[in-house]
C-alpha cells in the first residue's frame, strides 16, 4: 500500500561537498565512546567501572528513571576512561577495542511466532532499545509504553545527509526483519516513508508512504504530522532507517552490532575522501578524518542544520550517519548587509539573488549578522510545512506558557523541525534551542 505525502513549504539547501556513493570499510577504529548526552534526558547509572573488560553488547550503564533501558558497549574491549564534566556529569565512556570480538549472544528469534513482549525484552536486554525515539519530546522511548504507531523515514532531505537508500542497499533482509519486529510493539501500524524512486517500497508489515518535496520533507516529524498527527497524551515512536536494520540483525543473528554507515561530507573534506564509511556507532572522528585544524574547520556530527559541534578527538553521535566538515566563517565581510550582494551565501530571502544563481554553494559557519529583536514576520512560515504557527509557538516556549504550547502543537514538533527556521530567520534567533527548552519544560511539568 502506497500513499503520497506532498510537502510544499520548505527549503532545499544545495551545498557543495556531497559524498560519492562508494562504501569504504574502516579498519577497526581502536577507540569508541558512548556519550550519555546523545540520549537526551537520560540520567546514566554506571554498571561497569573504569578498567573493566567488556564484550560487545554488554551493558555499561542504564537509565536512572527507566532501569530496563540499558546502554551497551558497541565493541569488545576495555573501558579505558570515563570522562566527567562539571558536577561529575558523565560525558564519555571510552572503550578501547581489542581483537577478540567477544559478543553477547541473545539467540536468534523466529519473528513470525514471537510476541511483542519477547521482542521488547530482547530489545531492552541487547542495548537496541535506545534506537527507539519517542515523540513527543524526542527522547529515548519509555519501556512501559505502547505507541499508537511507529514511524521510519528512509528519505533524507537534510543538506548533504547520507542517503538511507544507499546505506540500506545491502541490508534489506535485516531491514525487513527490523520492521517486522517493530510492528509487534505497536497497537497501530508501522509507517515507512520513502522517496519516489525507492527500492524499499515492497517491504511488508508496514504502510509505505512516498514523500515528495523540499527539506524538511524527510524529517520524520513532518511525516508524522501528515500521516497521523500526535494528539495530547499520545505516544509515537520513531526509529532511524539504519537502526531498523541493526534491530533486524539482532533478531537474525542474536548479536548487537550497531553498525553505522557514515557519509563524510562537506567542502573541508578532500574530494577523494568524500565517501561512505562503514563503522560502528560511537566511532572516533580522528579515524575517519585524521587530524584537522579546528580553528579553520568545523567538525559536525550530523548535518549542517541539526548536528553537534565536535573536536578532533571526540566521537560521532550515537544516532548520526553523517559527518560534515565545513570551513569556519570567522572572517569579516565589508558592508556585508548591502542587499543583493554576497549571493554566494545560500539564502531564502528576497534581498539576495542567491536563489536565482542556482547551483551548489559552499557554506561556512559565519552567523551573517548579529542577533536582533524579532521584527520580520512571515519568513518562518515559509519553511514550516506543518500546520503550526512557528513564531507563536516559539514565543510560547520562551514565555514557558504550557497551556499555550499545548494549544499550538508542542507535542507534534522536535527541535530538528525548527532547524530551517534557525537558518532563515532574520533575527538570528536560536529556534532549535528554544524548542528544546520548551520540550524539556513539558517533560518536567507534564511528563
Amino acid at each position, binding site marked *: 500500500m502506497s500513499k503520497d505525502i506532498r510537502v510544499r513549504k520548505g527549503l532545499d539547501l544545495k551545498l557543495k561537498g556531497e559524498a560519492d556513493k562508494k562504501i569504504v570499510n574502516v579498519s577497526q577504529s581502536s577507540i569508541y565512546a558512548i556519550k550519555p548526552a546523545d540520549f537526551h534526558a537520560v540520567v546514566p547509572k554506571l554498571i561497569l567501572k573504569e578498567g573493566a573488560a567488556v564484550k560487545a553488547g554488554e551493558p555499561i550503564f542504564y537509565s536512572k528513571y527507566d532501569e530496563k533501558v540499558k546502554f551497551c558497549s558497541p565493541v569488545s574491549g576495555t573501558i579505558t576512561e570515563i570522562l566527567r564534566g562539571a558536577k561529575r556529569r558523565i560525558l564519555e565512556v571510552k572503550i578501547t577495542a581489542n581483537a577478540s570480538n567477544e559478543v553477547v549472544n541473545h539467540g536468534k528469534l523466529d519473528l513470525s511466532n514471537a510476541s511483542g513482549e519477547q521482542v521488547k525484552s530482547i530489545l531492552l536486554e541487547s542495548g537496541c532499545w535506545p534506537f527507539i525515539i519517542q515523540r513527543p519530546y524526542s527522547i529515548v522511548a519509555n519501556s512501559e509504553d505502547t505507541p499508537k504507531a511507529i514511524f521510519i523515514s528512509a528519505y533524507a532531505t537534510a543538506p548533504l545527509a547520507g542517503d538511507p537508500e544507499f546505506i540500506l542497499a545491502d541490508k534489506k533482509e535485516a531491514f525487513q526483519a527490523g520492521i517486522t519486529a517493530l510492528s509487534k510493539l505497536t497497537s497501530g501500524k508501522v509507517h515507512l516513508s520513502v522517496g519516489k524512486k525507492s527500492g524499499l517500497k515492497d517491504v511488508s508489515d508496514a504502510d509505505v508512504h512516498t514523500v515528495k518535496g523540499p527539506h524538511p520533507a524527510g524529517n520524520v516529524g513532518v511525516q508524522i504530522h501528515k500521516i497521523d498527527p500526535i494528539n495530547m497524551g499520545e505516544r509515537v515512536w520513531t526509529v532511524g532507517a539504519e537502526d531498523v536494520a541493526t534491530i533486524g540483525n539482532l533478531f537474525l543473528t542474536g548479536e548487537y552490532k550497531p553498525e553505522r554507515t557514515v557519509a563524510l561530507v562537506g567542502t573541508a573534506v578532500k574530494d577523494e575522501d568524500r565517501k561512505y564509511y562503514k563503522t560502528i556507532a560511537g566511532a572516533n572522528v580522528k579515524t575517519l578524518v585524521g587530524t584537522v585544524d579546528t580553528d579553520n574547520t568545523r567538525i559536525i556530527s550530523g548535518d549542517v542544520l541539526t548536528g553537534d559541534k565536535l573536536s578532533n578527538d571526540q566521537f560521532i553521535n550515537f544516532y548520526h550517519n553523517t559527518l560534515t566538515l565545513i570551513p569556519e566563517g570567522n*572572517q569579516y*565581510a565589508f558592508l556585508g548587509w548591502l*542587499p543583493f550582494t554576497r549571493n554566494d551565501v545560500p539564502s531564502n530571502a528576497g534581498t539576495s539573488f542567491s536563489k536565482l544563481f542556482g547551483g551548489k554553494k559552499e*557554506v561556512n559557519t559565519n552567523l*551573517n549578522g548579529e542577533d*536582533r529583536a524579532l521584527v*520580520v514576520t512571515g519568513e518562518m512560515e515559509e519553511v514550516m510545512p506543518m500546520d503550526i504557527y512557528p*513564531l507563536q509557538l516559539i514565543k510560547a516556549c520562551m514565555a514557558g506558557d504550557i497551556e499555550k504550547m499545548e494549544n499550538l*502543537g508542542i507535542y507534534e514538533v522536535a527541535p530538528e523541525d525548527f532547524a530551517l527556521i534557525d*537558518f532563515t530567520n532574520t533575527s538570528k534567533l536560536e529556534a532549535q534551542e528554544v524548542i528544546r527548552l520548551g520540550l524539556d519544560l513539558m517533560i518536567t511539568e507534564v511528563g
Partner: protein
Amino acid sequence: MKWVRNKLDQARKPFEPGQKLEKFAPAINAFDTFLFTPNHTTKKGAHVRDVVDLKRTMITVVLALIPALLFGMWNTGAQYLYQEMGLANVTDVPFMDAFIEGAILVTPLILVSYIVGLTIEFIFAIYRGHEVNEGYLVTGLLIPMIFPVDIPLWMLAISVAFAVLIGKEAFGGTGMNILNPALTARAFAFFAYPLYMSGNAIWVHQGATDSISGETILGTLAQGKSVAYNFFDAAAGFIPGSVSETSTIAVLIGAAILILTKVGSWRIIVSGFAGAAVMGLIFNAFGLNALMEFDWYMHLVVGGLAFGLVFMATDPVSAAQTMKGKWIYGFLCGFFGVMIRVFNPAYPEGIMLAILLMNVFAPTIDHYVIQGNVNKRKKRLAKAKANLQTA
C-alpha cells in the same frame, strides 16, 4: 579594507569586555557592524545561516523609500516655486531649481529626525545592554516624509522623541511596540500642534511672503469646494501634501521593491487597496456630499493612503503576524482609512488614524486566526478520544 579593519580593531580596544568603556560597546558595535558584517560564527543550533540580517532588511526598506523621497524633494520645491514664480503649472518649474529648493527644505527635517531618534536609541541600547537595532533607520526616514515641510524643527524633534520613548522604548524597544513609531510621531504632532499640522496654508513652503496657498485635495473637498486636480496629477504626485507621500507612482515603485524582496507583505498592500476601493464604492453609491461623491479610484491616489498602506501598514512589528490576519488587517486599514477621511473632514488624513487603530486591533485579529488552529487541534484530540472509547 584591511587598513580600515585594523583601525577599527584598534578603536574598539577600550570597549572590549573588562576594559574601561565596556558599557558603551553597543555604540562602537553599531558603527563597526555597519562597516563590516562581524566575524561571529554559529555557537549553537544550525551551523550555517542565511545571509539575511536585520540591517539588510531595513536597508531594503530605505531603498524602497528613495523614489518617494526624491520625488518628494522635487515636489516640495516645485509646489513652492511655481506659485512664487507665478507659473501656470507645477511642471513648468525648472527641474534642478525645484529639486535643490526641495532638498534644502527637506534635509534639515531628515537630519533632526535621525539625530534625535538615533541618540535615544543609542542611549537605550547602552542602558539595556543590547545592540542597537536597525529599525530606526526606516522610522527616522519615514517621519520627515509624512510631516508638512514647514513644521518647526523643535516640534519635529519633540514628536520624534515622543514616538521613540513612549511609542517604542516604553513597550520594551524594537519588536515590542504596539503602534507604528512613525505614525505615533505624526499623531502626536497632529494633536499637539494642530495649527502646524492641518489647515490650508501649511502643505506648501511659505517662503517670506506667507501668501502661498497650499490646500490639499482632501482639505478642499472637506470644505465642499471642487478640486482642480485630475487623476493623473494626483497619481503622479504634482499636488500639495506632506513631504513625500504625494506621488502614488513613486510609492508603488517602493511597493514593488518591498514585495519582490518579500520585505513588505503583499497581502497587506493588496488587501489594503482593496479595502479602500470597497469603502470608496460604497460611498459613491450613496453620494450625499462632495467627499462621498469623490470617485473611489481617486481615493486611492490622493492623500497619504498609498504611502500609509505600503510603508506604514506593512511594518511587521505592529501589523498582524499571521497570513490570514494580514489579509484582514490590510483590508480594514484601507476600509477605515477612507471611512474616517469621508465621515470626519476634520481629520483629512484618515489613513494615519486607521492604521493606528488597526495596530491596536492586530493582536486581536491574530488571536482569532490562531484560535482557529487551536480549535482544529482540539477537535482532532476529541475525535481521537472518541475513537479510543469505541474501539
